[in-house]
């Protein structure tokens, strides 16, 4: 290899990976949020894969469109997608240096999160009243693990929505006080969009397939 070319490659590598500059072109906090999202995505992937195995080895599986209230589930999906869109507008407002507008959009996002959680609480209550528990279900033994998969997957996702609402509330309060940075709103937004992405998978593979 030409010596000058090798030296140029070394210089580029050193400039990107030698410290003092992010090779990913992002802030440290944003990169750490992405790392967290990837690890969390793999946790959800583990749950959904385990669900796939359980379903594959079960002799039968309930027809979800008959067991679940699909109007409610579709409305929950609508609420989460809409809140995600509003969150993107909050990030845009924060980046544009408009804390008041960012605050308003953050509040709307939080309302979307609460609507989702309220619907989920209603769904869980209805399901529990029918006799479903994490360790048994009223359709046993035909569909072992059905309710375990339901409670674990939707419960873990619901916990993420609750955590997201809490994070957004903190960011909104800080935005309302003028103590915020565009990065903070964007990182909270990344987490919220991730929660939406997970629900897209849960909606398709647990409720529709």
């Amino acid at each position: 290899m030409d010596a000058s070319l090798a030296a140029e490659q070394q210089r580029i590598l050193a400039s990107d990976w030698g410290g003092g500059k992010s090779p990913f072109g992002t802030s440290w906090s944003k990169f750490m949020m992405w790392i967290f999202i990837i690890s969390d995505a793999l946790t959800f992937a583990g749950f959904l894969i385990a669900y796939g195995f359980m379903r594959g080895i079960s002799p039968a599986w309930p027809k979800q469109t008959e067991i679940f209230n699909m109007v409610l589930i579709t409305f929950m999906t609508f609420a989460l997608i809409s809140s995600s869109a509003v969150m993107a507008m909050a990030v845009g407002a924060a980046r544009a240096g408009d804390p008041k507008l960012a605050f308003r959009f953050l509040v709307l996002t939080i309302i979307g999160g609460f609507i989702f959680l309220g619907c989920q609480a209603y769904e869980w209550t209805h399901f529990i009243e029918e006799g479903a528990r994490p360790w048994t279900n009223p359709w046993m033994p035909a569909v072992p693990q059905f309710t375990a998969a339901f409670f674990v997957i939707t419960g873990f996702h619901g916990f993420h929505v609750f955590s997201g609402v809490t994070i957004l509330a903190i960011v909104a309060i800080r935005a309302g006080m003028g103590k915020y940075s565009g990065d903070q709103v964007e990182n909270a937004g990344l987490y919220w969009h991730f929660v939406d992405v997970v629900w897209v998978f849960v909606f398709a593979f647990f409720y529709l397939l």
Partner: protein
Amino acid sequence: MTWFWLLVLTGLALGLGYAPIPERIKALLLVCTTLAKVLVIAAVFMHLRYERVNLILITFTPLILAIIFFSFTFPETLGSASHVIQVR
């Protein structure tokens, strides 16, 4: 506009859920619809289309690997028995 397309894809997925088509075709179409939604959210809402290739690769590589490993192990659950053994 992105919000509108996400709702359209959600409606499409919902229609597939009720469609009287074979389960495997339904599963394939639902996977395609879901991946389309995820790509739209990641690219537009999460701004991944503006990020450097390094970050895009580090984001998707583990998930693609997870799908590959899953595809190696899952088909056994769909097989039928040809040998009978005693089980407890």
